[in-house]
């Protein structure tokens, strides 16, 4: 890894951590959601700096819409979406802290104990990466991805079906 690459990886890594902290520092639902978005975007940029081009671009693309949709739900469901009413919207603080620390510890243990193998010495060029990904998706991992896809589609159809009666009631009114 070149020095420049390392500098970018460090920068985007720190940016991701900083924005992740901002998520909890602010009381504004909109700021919180978009801070999470920029944390994820920084991770995407980190992937780009690591020469995982497809993964980086995909991460940067997907998160923008997903986090924006999350933002509207946060604004809809929270009592004080602007965070201006000095209202405490947290709950179960001790449980959350314990759960957070335990989860972080588990991730750290897994990261340290996993035998990652020797680091790659050469990286395939981006178009080869794409080709490899395509073969993976239509080969060994096909069943996994197709199952996930169908599950999400089913969930979408089910969610729409659940929402239909409410829509009908509103039309009748």
């Amino acid at each position, binding site marked *: 890894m070149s020095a420049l690459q390392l500098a970018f990886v460090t920068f985007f890594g720190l940016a991701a951590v900083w924005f992740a902290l901002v998520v909890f520092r602010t009381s504004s639902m*909109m700021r919180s959601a978009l801070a999470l978005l920029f944390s994820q975007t920084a991770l995407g940029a980190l992937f780009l700096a690591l020469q995982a081009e497809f993964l980086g671009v995909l991460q940067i693309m997907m998160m*923008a819409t997903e986090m*924006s949709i999350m*933002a509207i739900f946060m604004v809809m469901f929270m009592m004080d979406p602007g965070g201006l009413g000095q209202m405490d919207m947290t709950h179960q603080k001790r449980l959350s802290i314990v759960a957070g620390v335990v989860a972080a510890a588990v991730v750290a243990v897994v990261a340290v104990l996993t035998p990652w193998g020797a680091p790659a010495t050469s990286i395939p060029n981006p178009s080869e990466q*794409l080709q490899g990904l395509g073969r993976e998706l239509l080969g060994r991992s096909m069943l996994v991805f197709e199952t996930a896809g169908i599950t999400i589609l089913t969930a979408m159809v089910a969610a729409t079906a659940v929402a239909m009666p409410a829509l009908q009631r509103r039309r009748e009114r």
Partner: protein
Amino acid sequence: MSVLAPILALLLLAWCVAVLDAWMTTGRFRPLAPLTATLALVAGESLVPRKPDRLFFETAPILLLLAAVLAAAALPIAPHLVITDLATSALFVNAALAYVLVALLMAGWGPDGAYAMIGGWRFLGQTIAYSMLIVMPITAVAMRAQSLLTTDIVRSQAGLWNVLYQPLGFALFFVAAMAVSFLPPFDLPTASGELAGGVEAEYTGARRAIFRLGRTILIVSLATATTVFYLGGWLGPWLPPWLWSALKTLAVAAAMLAAGHAVPRLREAHLLAWAWKAGIPLAMLNIFLVGVLLLVIP
């Protein structure tokens, strides 16, 4: 140098689009209008509304401009006139366009104004309508080129432009591109005459100038994307490649502006219904047809 030329081309095209837009709306051809309008905006006072979310308010116009420029960065004007030649550039265009939504949400939330807020959230709904109609036609285009590289996509159209090879995809992409750049009849977030400018309502002076510039460059980027994906990009006889790109881009932009003048503004619910009940099945059909064509015609 390689970065400067495309940026200048982008600004020049934006100038032309601004002149065209004014010409179509007012009926007067004034080639210097963008200059005078910019001067008037920049010289004017730039007000900050009461109790804004200052960070979002200031970031939104810049982010809109950035997203538009980044989308254009992956699109070639001539064989070697492209800012970044990523292996995933067709996907990158879409990634950059996703941040138009983020910019408009910020512009909606930032000023703490009702019209802006409604405009911002409306664009979120609009995104849910158009985003699939951007991605799925691009998928079919990439299938034919067997590459996500935009320069490869242009080269794949040497025999027959995609507009003839997959006219359905072109129609869907054209409409979706109009929705991304919130041109009429999809100008739900700004909705002049109904939302008093919506997301743009609270911006004045220099901030408004940046917002307008971003929007105009966004129109240029999407017209360039349509040219690259469907109209053979720089391909064409006699004239130099960059001129072909410029002419096609301007023609697409003019078509987008003209199409908007003839149609009334769509309602949010109708837009979503049309996009999901008609648009997405048609986009699926397009992918299927292109797949069959690729297998049948070697």
